[in-house]
């Protein structure tokens, strides 16, 4: 699998660390809504198809990237810096 880092260019997956489902929405820090926290901490989407994920280029520039990956074909459809905002906008 090759992931194109916006800084570093196309790099082998071995340089990246999977940092989880990119669709999770973290509740406000002071929120006491346990259901929302539970969903954030434990619930993961597991689609057969395009998936919004967070990857860190840990063996490179260390940026976190928002990656859309097809879980069936392992095709990387898009990558961008995660810093653009936490809330996932779906396909980018």
């Amino acid at each position, binding site marked *: *699998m*090759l992931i194109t880092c916006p800084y570093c260019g196309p790099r*082998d997956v071995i340089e990246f*660390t999977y*940092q989880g489902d990119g669709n999770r929405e*973290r*509740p406000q*820090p*002071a*929120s*006491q809504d*346990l259901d929302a*926290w*539970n969903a*954030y*901490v*434990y619930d993961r989407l597991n689609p057969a198809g395009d998936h919004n994920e*967070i990857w*860190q280029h*840990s063996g490179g520039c*260390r*940026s*976190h990237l928002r990656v859309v990956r097809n879980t069936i*074909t*392992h*095709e990387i459809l898009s990558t961008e*810096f*995660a*810093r*653009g*905002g*936490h809330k996932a906008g779906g396909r980018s």
Partner: protein
Amino acid sequence: MSPRRAEAGGRIDRLRTIRFTFDGAPYTGHAGDTLASALLANGVTLFGRSFKYHRPRGLLAAGVEEPNALVTVLRGEVREPNIAATMVEIYDGLVAVSQNRTPSLAWDIGAINQLGGKILSAGFYYKTFMGPVIGPLKGTRFWMFCEHFIRRAAGLGRAGTAPDPARYERMNAFCDVLVVGSGPAGLMAAKAAADQGARVILADLEAGFGGSANWSGETIDGMQAADWAQRIVGQLEGNDNVRLLPRTTVWGYYDGNTLAALERVTDHKEAAAKGEPRQRYWAIRAGTVVLATGAFERPLVFPGNDRPGVMLAHAAERYAYEYGVLPGQRIALFTNNDSAYASAVALKKAGAAVVAIVDVRSDVTGDMRRLASEAEAELLTGHAVIATEGGKALSGLKVQRFDAMSGALSGDERSIHADCLLMSGGWSPTIHLASQAGAKAEWDPARQAFLPPKPTQRWPNQHWIGAGAFTGAFSTAEAIAEGRAAGVSAAGGTATPIALPVVEAAPGDPDPAPVFEIKAKGKSFVDFQHDVTAEDVRLAHREGFVSVEHLKRYTTLGMATDQGKNSNVPGLAIMAEALGKPILEVGTTRFRAPYTAVSIGSLAAERFGDLKPERLTPMHDWHIANGARMYSAGLWYRPMIYGHAGETVEQAYVREAKATRESAGIVDVSTLGKIAVQGPDAAEFLDRVYTNMFSTLAVGKARYGLMLREDGLAFDDGTTWRLGEQEFLMTTTTANAGKVMQHLEYFLDVIWPELKVTVTSVTDEWAGAAIGGPNARAILASCVKGTAVDNATLPFMGIVHGEIAGVPVMICRLSFSGEMAFEVYSGAGYGTHVWEALIEAGKPFGLVTYGLEALGTMRIEKGHVTGAEIDGRTTARDLHLDWMLSKKKPFIGSAMMDREGLVANDRLQLVGLIALDNRPLNGGGHVVEQLDEENPHDSLGHITACCYSPALGQYIALALVKGGKARHGTRAFVSDPLRDRFGPVEIVSNHFYDPDGSRMHG
């Protein structure tokens, strides 16, 4: 001359004789021989014993698909089992032994299993080892009892126990076109792609390039096919943009056109040259892959088809043409297709007598009749072999009239005297890599084979093109045409018509008769390596296994080391017949990586042994020079003890810890993770990350901090120093430095991108020394310039900047040992300089150096936690760190940490243990209320760390015990059946020593 070696011919070097042994007996062969061809030349017919029935087995094939002739190769103490003799190139001094026989290959006691055929049928394990309902061998215990004996009786080679001294290496390679297989199709593809200017890698699992050209006996462009192949190889060799990889098996096809290959660099040599690895693992990223992997000839399924001397037709042709070895003097052939006729002619030309060609088809073409008469063979059309005769070698066979439409046998049996029977059941393209890449094979009723589909759009990351026999194009002329087209297209060019090499080959129709099995009395093998018979397949069907996946698992068909390279299609055909369905509807299983067995060493490569990275602290050489015994902690090396002559480890750490508490000790703490946290929002960020408050921390002060994970469990601890209004130096545990860094980066990048903070790992920039004990301050006072270190200037958790021996240092007063202690940080390059100055200053005070053991001892005495207690299952409360949970602000984990299960009273909580029998305790030992050495049960928890405490004069431990806090002062037992350690303990507070901290504050 050896008995079966022809006077001339073959592509071996007859001038070079090579000596080797097999099962202890000395043999000779020639350069270019495989173990199989050399033994065959010496008249050896018996190569192995079969998996279940211990039947004598000979060579079936000549290549990678060989299921029978598995051997173990010995190199010194190292044994490598289950290698096909056909893939072992001989070298002087090669030592190979046969497998699965006791006491010898010729006289094998396990052969008695042949009498138990009915019992040892499919599903044997499942049916036989359901133990009785009660008693000592109830349920699965019966299986566990029997397993020991069965594993010895059934099976393959024995793995070695000696460490593998070989070196392995990993290479990353990139190319425009990877060509897998170097037969005529692969050679043409590589040549065409290279001519287009593409970067090409050509890999072949054999020692030489050329594939079928090396043994086909055909003529290409007026020369021997093998010579033509060598000419193309020569042209490729001269090309800068081509890399040739012989002895390289491409075994895996992964996402994004990444392929894994194993190059056997020195397995064929007596010894590796300096710097040469034994094997090289290639990760190849290819723009396009040309799959020119050829096809395997299929065996026919008939009684006695596994007797030594029964061989695949093309394999015999290959032994004759490539190695100059005749597998027999009187050869018979049994076929359902035309390709065996060319084999008959080839063997006749090589000097064998071809006594008969038995063809299941009632009629054959005039071309085939002409080939049969050229081979001077009796042609028996409409016949089938129904039995073979002989013991450890073939002596004859029986044939009978056969109707290919109905499968019925009729007429009288007729015996034919032969010492070799060649069979050809049609050809199966080697579609493994395409299948791994996601392609679904399609059954072609004409070819009677699973053919690869056209590459589909469903797998946008996989770009492959097939060529030659791989696509079902079995003739060399087609292979050459397809190979060229594939090469040009893979290189992104457009094929212009050119004159292709002209092939002269025997005629023949590639389509076989749809006959897979001759049903007659006796065991007919489908899977030779796993001893699966046709009857086993039908039994599985009768017992209700209808899907091919279930069939495979129940009968173990195709699950041996050869992964069914010979047996898949015949097995499916028999299953399809039993189901009354066409093969098309039954389908096939998907092939998985690896294509052939891959050594674990090659996968580990440089991650193991002398190429593994190591991290050394700046003072490493000093430690070594001063008698430290080192200890690996992750990638780090840290002093364990600085032992004196004659001291045990325990004596050394007790002395070090004692001296520290009595006067002073110094320890290297450079390995602690250090992260610079800087920026206008640094304090706010730390408030969110740590459970306690950091925004209130004054500049020039440090604070102990605790981090939780999002789920509320404890994550890491350490001190963080405020060096400026917007600048902090965070320390983490050694083990978690990387994880904490990643955690911080994640929150800054993904969750709180609005915070103006940067984090930088500075672990390697600082050398750290912790100096503690009653005299620590006096030692510092005597060597630190530029600052006072008295209580007013440097209070507990205070930070000062000064100089030691001319080097700027930063000193923080904090304590892990429980003594008055200071951490002295300097630039990493000056670490040893400062360390030596501190040692010098400490001399009048009897300063000792101490290692991790003494560090651990003092922290256990103090009840401080480390990774052994912050184990990913404990909460702050479990570790009595709830005083650190701020109520004034949310922080990572604050919302989740109060969940019911995380605040329950019966959770495992940190306690101290004192051994009441004055014997050492062991980490991992369990704590129980009732001691039951025979049947240990009801664990209350476990020991996380243990030591002899010089301060207490007792063996003590930290433990996580259910409801531990309420058990202080009570009696329990340790129960450690693995190490046979049982005994009484007292549960106490984890703060064994100086619980109010007067020593470190004092």
